[in-house]
């Protein structure tokens, strides 16, 4: 099959478009999460997504509506993480772990009740971007536009809170409001990203591109752009290669992200050594 031929398929076009939107959104949010040491929140919310999907499939809703139905549950869970963290008696990583464990336990029980791991549940666990529906593509576009607008509109506050939360408070910034917005946007992104990489690998979309971009030692604004660039590149390459070689798209996309990190990290070490000698 010629490379150009694959772009003629409507499902590939949908996959590429949805992939680019979600790649951009997850990498933008990922920069803020990674710098605030909240990287694992993607993992926690993905596990909650697993529980939510299992519940939706048990009820017997059409798989077409799984994404929409899982959204409110995952958003509520992100608020639970926020409340647990705020109590100051539970550390942020522990709060994520608690909510995450509950999500996955719920998923295991519910999937068992619905007769074990069926095809639908497995497709969410490991992702299948080539089955992205028109509804999910539209949702991806909406969340992309929403996150882009939120980051532009709240950039000053997001940057200040990311740099130092106490300093941001002293400027009159409502840090709790900013934290809640960031968590809710991450929750929506985690739900949408499960179709691309699968629940197991959602956090990779939030962590790998920002970490790669951070290796470049750029300004804050340029770090965001670089993370988006790496993420989009990995998604497009991953979808094409997985289609041509008949590999799972989610895993291939994550491996491309990992390869980009390795390349940038190696180049950085090489340049440092070259300067020394």
């Amino acid at each position: 099959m010629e490379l150009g031929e694959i772009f003629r398929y409507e499902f590939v076009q949908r996959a590429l478009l949805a992939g680019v939107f979600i790649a951009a959104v997850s990498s933008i949010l990922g920069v803020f999460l990674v710098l605030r040491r909240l990287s694992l929140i993607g993992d926690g919310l993905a596990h909650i997504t697993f529980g939510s999907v299992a519940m939706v499939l048990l009820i017997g809703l059409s798989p077409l509506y799984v994404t929409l139905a899982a959204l409110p549950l995952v958003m509520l869970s992100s608020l639970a993480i926020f409340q647990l963290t705020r109590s100051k008696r539970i550390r942020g990583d522990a709060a994520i772990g608690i909510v995450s464990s509950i999500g996955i336990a719920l998923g295991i029980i519910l999937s068992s009740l619905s007769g074990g791991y069926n095809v639908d549940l497995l497709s969410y666990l490991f992702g299948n971007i080539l089955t992205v529906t028109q509804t999910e593509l539209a949702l991806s576009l909406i969340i992309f536009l929403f996150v882009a607008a939120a980051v532009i509109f709240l950039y000053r506050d997001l940057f200040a809170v990311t740099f130092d939360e106490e300093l941001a408070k002293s400027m009159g910034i409502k840090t709790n409001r900013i934290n809640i917005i960031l968590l809710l946007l991450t929750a929506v992104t985690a739900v949408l990203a499960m179709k691309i990489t699968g629940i197991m690998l959602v956090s990779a979309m939030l962590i790998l591109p920002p970490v790669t971009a951070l290796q470049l030692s750029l300004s804050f604004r340029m770090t965001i752009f670089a993370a988006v660039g790496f993420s989009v590149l990995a998604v497009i390459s991953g979808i094409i290669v997985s289609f041509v070689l008949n590999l799972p798209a989610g895993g291939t996309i994550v491996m491309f992200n990992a390869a980009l990190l390795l390349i940038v990290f190696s180049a950085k070490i090489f340049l440092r050594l070259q300067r020394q000698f």
Partner: protein
Amino acid sequence: MPVNVISTENMTYSYNGVEAINDISFAVKKGDYLGIVGPNGSGKSTLVKNILGILPPQKGFVYLFGQPLSEFRQWNKIGYLPQKLSSLNSHFPGTVYEIAGLGLWDQNSENLDTALNLMGVGHLSSRLIGELSYGEQQRVMLARALVSRPELLILDEPTTALDPETRDIFYALTEELNRLQDTTIVLVTHDIGVIGKYARQLLYLDKKTVFTGTFEDFCNSAAMTGLFGPMSQHIICHQHNGRGNNK
């Protein structure tokens, strides 16, 4: 009647039941230079965080420019330099220029350049904040506090990471801002000598108010001799009288 820049009434705060400050009431008028002094753990930083709403007081009231803290919105009137940044990591991807403009909607490049040059870090504007030494980072944060030309400057142990020369330049700058631009200064330090040299008002804190008033009154008080001994009274108060009072 002029409105106080800061006014607190019976302010109290404790961490998990351990008292940090108790029943603190004081006022700062426009153009004052107040030094807040006290030993380690006396509640100085907690007091500042209460005033700025970082830790809202559990009891009592805070008024900023005559408005209750909860209703205060004119945060660009206040420049704040924290004792240390709570979460800065060395890989943070913010340039000096980005950090100096932190929290500002209107990032006037002339004001940014002026503030950075004033603190001697203008040449570092494109460097990442995490790449700088602690002293340089502190200067950038000082520039950030000054960039909005605040009416009230709150400085919490501002010179701990600075060399003696830069420290003297910095304090001279605060004195100049106070004298020429009528900027109200609140300086938190454990160094009574610095207070004696630059501040006119003094709040001595040890969880409770030990002394509040002018520095001259403090010099003549029993609190001074009780806290620092007769020799230090002579040295510190002599230094203060020697600088003259320009206001």
